[in-house]
């Protein structure tokens, strides 16, 4: 029915709703008009009564007092006959309630009860009223009279009829106007509906035809934007689907989906078929448990149940799977459960990695690992032996060279003292050079011997008072060089766990260097202290001497490596190598910072374990 009347469309419903609203409003307006008319008519009747009753009193009063009933009757006949004020009958009752005169009524006619609410009685053709006869302040009796409502009823009927006619005309005009207006306003909806139909059918390339700039045109434009966005998203979805399908199909690992209910393979990729040696149809029809060994199946099922309950989001395990031909292969199985947005399980995602090669590689690696350790032990032993031989050789060379050097030095001294006059100046100069070189070579030999000893002597760590050790060495150095005044600052309370003999040798070198390289400054200063860095104790020896170029700091600790010429500062180039060797024997490390003519600072640490043992 609704469809046949065209009321299913928005246009029809708008039209119906507007018409209903208008009818209701007009009805209310009409009812209110009737109410106002009744109020006005009642007011009119009451106004008429305010005129009529005094007039009747003025007519009736004197005649009633005078007992002139004939005149009274004539007056009443005149009032009724002339239809003055719409009076249709009058009956005058004296104080005893007797009828004194009446007009417009048959004799002794029983009068209807007088009305008390004029408004409620306006529908009656005659208003039956009763008022006292009051004249000159005296109540002379009562007056019953009928007031015709014919004019009132006629006026009200006319007003009502005209009101209804106007209302009906307005409804018809509104209906027609709204029909035209509705068509004009909703014509763009048709195009919008066609556009939405095209989108619903997947034809995103047919935009809605937009005309004008009203809300519906704006809606059409938004619709087109939405269609474009949907089209782009659909294309993106397709690309993603292709991408993921390619990932699925071309993955280097085997991937399969297993249904939650029947637990059968839903889809599998090519790699999984390769790994398992199945045809696709064959695998999809097989029970998923067919690929597992009995020994693994229970564990897999337990993990799967945990996936179902949400206790785990995925599990990973190495299992042996049965290929189609019956042979076994090692595989890494990763299983997760895909759930929808409401958390309902959709299917299991099974990723199978062929672990056969890895298992073989692990086996070989284990084999090589065992052999490698043996090899390293052999090589280490060989290296240690070589080092010991080298150190022994170095020590032997140094030790054996000392005897001929002492001989050369001794005889060259005799030659210089006993044959001084025999030699000319050139000969004496050559001899002096020989002696200096021999002495230098002797110091080098001592130094090498000392360096060799560092590696050869035994290592015996103990707790030492580092501040006191530094203080003793500083005092010895000062005594050995009485001609110089150097300010030495030693941080008190420094403790250390180290071999005391080796640490003394290291400190002699470091303090000796500081003393030597600060020899050319006006106010030489040496500072020895320590600080904590990340739990490690760092000791340092700082001077304000010649310093060095940081670019060459790597050469500092090499044997025979020197950053200053021998004419500036004498030395063997072995001292810092010795210090480094000692620090390394303590498991620590040494490094230096410096700037030319700005002094140098040497830092070193000892092995933490050594400190722990000491504690």
């Amino acid at each position, binding site marked *: 029915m609704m469809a046949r009347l065209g009321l299913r469309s928005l246009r029809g419903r708008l039209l119906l709703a507007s018409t209903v609203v208008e009818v209701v409003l007009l009805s209310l307006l009409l009812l209110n008009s009737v109410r106002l008319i009744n109020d006005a008519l009642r007011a009119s009747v009451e106004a008429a009564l305010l005129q009529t009753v005094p007039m009747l009193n003025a007519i009736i009063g004197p005649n009633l007092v*005078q*007992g*002139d009933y004939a005149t009274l009757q004539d007056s009443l006949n005149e009032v009724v006959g002339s239809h003055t004020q719409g009076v249709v009958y009058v009956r005058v009752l004296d104080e005893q309630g007797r009828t004194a005169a009446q007009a417009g009524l048959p004799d002794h006619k029983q009068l209807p009860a007088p009305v008390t609410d004029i408004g409620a009685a306006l529908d009656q053709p005659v208003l039956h009223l009763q008022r006292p006869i009051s004249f000159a302040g005296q109540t002379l009796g009562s007056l019953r009279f009928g007031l015709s409502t014919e004019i009132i009823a006629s006026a009200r009927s006319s007003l009502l009829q005209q009101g209804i006619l106007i209302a009906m005309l307005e409804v018809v005009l509104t209906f027609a106007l709204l029909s035209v207006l509705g068509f004009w306003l909703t014509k763009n909806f048709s195009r919008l509906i066609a556009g939405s139909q095209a989108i619903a059918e997947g034809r995103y390339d047919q935009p809605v035809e937009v005309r004008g700039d009203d809300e519906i045109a704006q809606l059409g434009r938004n619709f087109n934007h939405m269609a474009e966005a949907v089209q782009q998203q659909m294309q993106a979805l397709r690309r993603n689907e292709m991408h993921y399908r390619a990932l699925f199909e071309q993955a280097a690992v085997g991937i399969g989906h297993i249904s939650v209910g029947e637990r059968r393979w839903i889809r599998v990729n090519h790699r999984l078929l390769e790994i398992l040696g199945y045809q696709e149809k064959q695998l999809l029809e097989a029970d998923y448990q067919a690929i597992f060994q009995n020994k693994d199946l229970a564990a897999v099922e337990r993990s799967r149940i945990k996936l179902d309950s949400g206790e785990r989001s995925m599990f990973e395990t190495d299992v042996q799977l049965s290929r189609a031909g019956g042979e076994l292969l090692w595989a890494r199985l990763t299983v997760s459960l895909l759930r929808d947005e409401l958390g309902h399980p959709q299917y299991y995602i099974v990723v199978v990695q062929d672990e056969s090669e890895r298992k073989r590689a692990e086996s070989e690696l284990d084999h090589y690992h065992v052999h490698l350790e043996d090899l390293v032990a052999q090589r280490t032993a060989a290296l240690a032996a070589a080092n010991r031989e080298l150190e022994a050789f170095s020590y032997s060379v140094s030790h054996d060279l000392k005897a001929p050097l002492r001989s050369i030095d001794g005889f060259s001294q005799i030659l210089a003292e006993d044959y001084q006059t025999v030699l000319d100046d050139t000969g004496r100069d050559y001899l002096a050079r020989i002696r200096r070189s021999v002495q230098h070579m002797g110091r080098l030999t001592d130094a090498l011997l000392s360096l060799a000893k560092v590696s050869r002597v035994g290592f015996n760590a103990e707790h030492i008072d580092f501040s006191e050790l530094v203080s003793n060495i500083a005092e010895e150095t000062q005594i050995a060089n009485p001609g110089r005044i150097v300010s030495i600052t030693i941080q008190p309370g420094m403790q250390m766990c180290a071999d005391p003999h080796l640490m003394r040798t290291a400190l002699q070198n470091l303090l000796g260097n500081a003393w030597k390289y600060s020899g050319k400054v006006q106010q030489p200063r040496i500072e020895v202290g320590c600080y904590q860095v990340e739990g490690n104790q760092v000791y340092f020896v700082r001077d304000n001497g010649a310093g060095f170029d940081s670019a060459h700091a790597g050469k500092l600790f090499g044997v025979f490596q020197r950053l200053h010429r021998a004419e500036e500062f004498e030395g063997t180039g072995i001292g810092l190598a010795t210090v480094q060797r000692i620090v390394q024997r303590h498991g620590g490390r040494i490094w230096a910072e410096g700037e030319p003519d700005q002094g140098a600072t040497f830092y070193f640490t000892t092995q933490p374990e050594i400190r722990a043992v000491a504690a």
Partner: protein
Amino acid sequence: MVLLPYRFIPLLLCVLLGWPAALLAQPLRLGVAPYLSTRSLLVESAPLKDFLADRLRQPVSIGTAANPGKFVQRMIRGDFDVALLPPHFARYMQQTYQYQPVAGVRSDFYALLLVPKDDPARNVADIKGQVLNLPHHLSLVALETGRWLRTLGLDPGRDLQQHFHSTDNNAVLALIGQRKAASATSRAVFERMPAEIRAQLRILGSTSSALSLVLLASPRLAPQKLAAIRQAISEFPFSEAGLEYFQTRGVNLVPVAEQDLQIYDELLPLMRKDLREFLS
């Protein structure tokens, strides 16, 4: 045992329930002769009416008539239990219909002789030969004015041109816009006339004290009721309403003696002749 008829049962119930006597009693019908307009008569008589109703514990209704003849006619017809009327009519009703005088009202000066304000007349003798406007020839004003003029040497029938009017008002209004004329009216009527009318007139003289009204009781009235009425009337001047009534009107309540009414006996034939049309 005699059963009461059903129609007496409501009456019996009323008696047993002690309805006030005033509700059951018929009203006392007080007639007032039409010496003023009907409205003025009702206003004038209201204090007496209310006083009587209070003392007699009986409602009182006031009636009058369009003219003295019709008033006499109503009295004859028995429309009134007591009636207030001029003394010559009272004498007529007493003599002819056995009405009994109860009390009288005496005015200090009853009738006024009026002339236009700018009239040259300065005393009563100056109006000799002029028109004299009078109310009904049987009105007390006409009678008293004639009696008074005669004492001054003027015979109205001979020395004046008497014009009789239907009412006191008409007699006065006839003077407006006239010269060399006079009118006689009662003091009560003159005082109730509009101020602009009175401003055009001048009082040339007035009658002396006279019995202006007599209260008659109907011969059909029961003796007890008549006694009660007499008692009430005698108390009226001493009541608050009565004091105001008499003081503002310049009148007194007086007993009526036989000789007070006998002086009007000479008018009875004339009155009987004039009232003939109302007596049928």
